[in-house]
């Protein structure tokens, strides 16, 4: 789960990372009131989970109430790369001498935590990594040991930060690492980390991505999620505990396992169609999950056909088949549903479908056949 900047700053502040005073608001009037309270100059920042906000005009400096009102009304509702701005973060403006980059994440290849610091912050760090890799200091940290002071020193000296920033940066790195581990984050990133003219080091942005798998030991994740933006289809799926990503095609997809679902999207594409979504019912899905998945998919008005592609391992095809039958009984399924079942209890599953014939329920023997059929039906449905 990705947090908005303001949420990221609020959680990092709890670990002692210095951030600017600010307020999150959803209306122009609230934005002006917040700016008046904070005192000018303030920065009006669009809260969207996409890079390049500044270039798109989503970050503006306001020196007065009038300017705050003008910027807030321009930015609220703005579309930044497909993300509509519904929330603003109003923050006291900072004087900046230098801009740095700092992050902790997991290095999959090394199987260690990776800390990175660069003196070239405030810009696209991927570009820095490509053009001047030596400008990024990197340190691996053994997850069994955690951060020691020398790791932080190695990052700060390695990145050749201004000597005035050293001690502030070292203490922020240690706080940032603590947040990374204790929050069960996949990523904590500050870009830019700034040095002010009076020698303070300070986080001017925050990107925090939390590990949903650790949600059971972090009740606070739910509060953070409630304010995160969501596609209404994704919202509906999440309420039903489904792993769903909305897309813009016409073939609804239900499968088990991320790899098989991704492969199914690819095969639908090769068959000349386009997937309406990614929906992974996960391992061990029962009848209820399948019926829920069918409900979510068929609620999407763009869907012209549905492809259910199940290769049972921990998932039992008999339960899947029962879920499909239950789904047909509970909701009015208006589009054809192509079903391919293989693996654990596949024969029982196919027998259940055969014993309960429904209009629009189309069995298929193989994955490719199912994809071709679903694409064909989506096209003929669209013409009808």
């Amino acid at each position, binding site marked *: 789960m*990705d947090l908005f900047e303001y949420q990221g700053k609020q959680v990092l502040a709890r670990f002692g990372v210095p951030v600017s005073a600010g307020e999150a608001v959803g209306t122009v009037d609230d934005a002006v009131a917040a700016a008046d309270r904070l005192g000018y100059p303030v920065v009006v920042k669009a809260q969207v*989970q996409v*890079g390049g906000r500044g270039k798109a005009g989503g970050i503006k400096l306001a020196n007065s109430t009038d300017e705050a009102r003008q910027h807030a009304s321009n930015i609220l509702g703005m579309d930044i790369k497909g993300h509509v701005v519904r929330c603003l973060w109003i923050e006291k403006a900072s004087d900046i001498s230098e801009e740095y980059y700092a*992050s*902790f*994440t*997991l*290095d*999959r*290849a090394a*199987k*260690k*935590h*990776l800390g*990175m610091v660069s003196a070239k912050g405030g810009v696209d*760090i*991927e570009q820095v*990594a490509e053009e001047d890799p030596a400008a*990024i200091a990197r340190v691996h940290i*053994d*997850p*069994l040991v955690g951060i020691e002071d020398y790791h932080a020193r190695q990052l700060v000296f390695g990145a050749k930060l201004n000597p005035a920033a050293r001690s502030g940066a070292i203490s922020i790195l240690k706080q940032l690492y603590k947040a990374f*581990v204790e929050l*069960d984050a*996949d*990523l904590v*990133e500050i870009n830019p980390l700034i040095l002010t003219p009076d020698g303070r080091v300070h986080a001017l942005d925050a*990107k925090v*991505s939390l*590990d949903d*798998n*650790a949600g*059971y*030991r972090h009740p606070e994740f739910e509060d953070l999620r409630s304010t995160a933006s969501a596609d209404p289809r994704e919202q509906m799926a999440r309420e039903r505990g489904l792993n769903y990503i909305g*897309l813009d095609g016409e073939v609804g997809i239900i*499968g*088990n*396992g991320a*790899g*098989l679902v*991704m*492969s199914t*999207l*690819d095969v639908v*594409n090769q068959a000349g169609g386009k997937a309406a979504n*990614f929906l992974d019912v996960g*391992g*061990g899905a029962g009848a209820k999950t399948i019926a829920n998945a069918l409900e979510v998919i068929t609620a999407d008005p763009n869907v012209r056909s549905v492809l259910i592609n*199940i*290769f*049972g*391992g*921990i*998932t039992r095809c008999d339960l899947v088949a029962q879920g499909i039958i239950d789904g047909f009984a509970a909701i009015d399924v208006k589009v054809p549903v192509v079903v391919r079942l*293989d*693996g*654990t209890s596949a024969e029982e599953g196919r027998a259940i479908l055969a014993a309960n014939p429904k209009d629009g329920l189309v069995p298929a023997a*193989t*994955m*490719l056949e199912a994809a071709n059929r679903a694409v064909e039906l989506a096209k003929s449905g669209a013409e009808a």
Partner: protein
Amino acid sequence: MAIIIDENTRVVVQGLTGREGRFHALRNRDYGTKVVAGVTPGKGGSDVEGIPVFDTMVEAVNETGANASIIFVPARFTADAVYEAADSGVGVIVCITEGVPAHDEARFVNYVRTRYPDTVLIGPNCPGLISPGKCNIGIMPGEITLAGGPVGLVSRSGTLTYQAVHELTQRGIGQTTCVGIGGDPVPGTGFIDCLSRFEADPATLACVMIGEIGGSDEETAAAFIASEMTKPVVAYVAGVTAPPGKKMGHAGAIVSGSKGTAAAKIEALEKAGCGVGRNPTEIGEIMAEVLKGV
């Protein structure tokens, strides 16, 4: 021959008395796997269809001579189960559980690798592995495999593994061992661990490797294939049309040195000399051609 598990593997099931553990352990036993014990704290002394249940792993290993474990416990108890398995001395730990927090995973994977370098940890979030005709540890449906080799298969995906095995079996191509390493950020065993074992296994003549978008494991494996593998490798990468993730921040991309796209992975694998299928069915077609030449 096979890799990692064979007819001498004796399995203890952590979480045998749970719904999933019981269902799959019994299926593994029906397949012919020597399932010798189960562990559920507080249920020691009972049994599940004749499989004795112990309270602790140490006891189960001492009493039954188990040398491998399979973990079916819920995600919040998984780290504990892996540490217990490693310290009990089993040489193979297969962790099926999905949804394990990444930080837990990073800790226990490092623990096993540094304290017990000879212990093979497969998973978490994996379907397990099978040496057809000899031993099946996990949730893979054994009936879709074909014993006798000559293909070794390694996959990052669960169900896509079954699809690929199914494609081989449909064409009469058998397997030595099929390993589902799992799709989590820090798998205990990676592509290269498996490919090097297949390279050393005389019964394996060719390999199938199945990857997916994200990370750079496929690119790293491609470099290994180009420099170290004499046996042909047929590959498949899922996610060509997957939308760019809603990932924010850039640290992931910097670490991997690539965008983690399917296109980049396919290019790397093709450059390394692998035949790369465009869909799972082509894995079988390409492998049938490859085997004519070995």
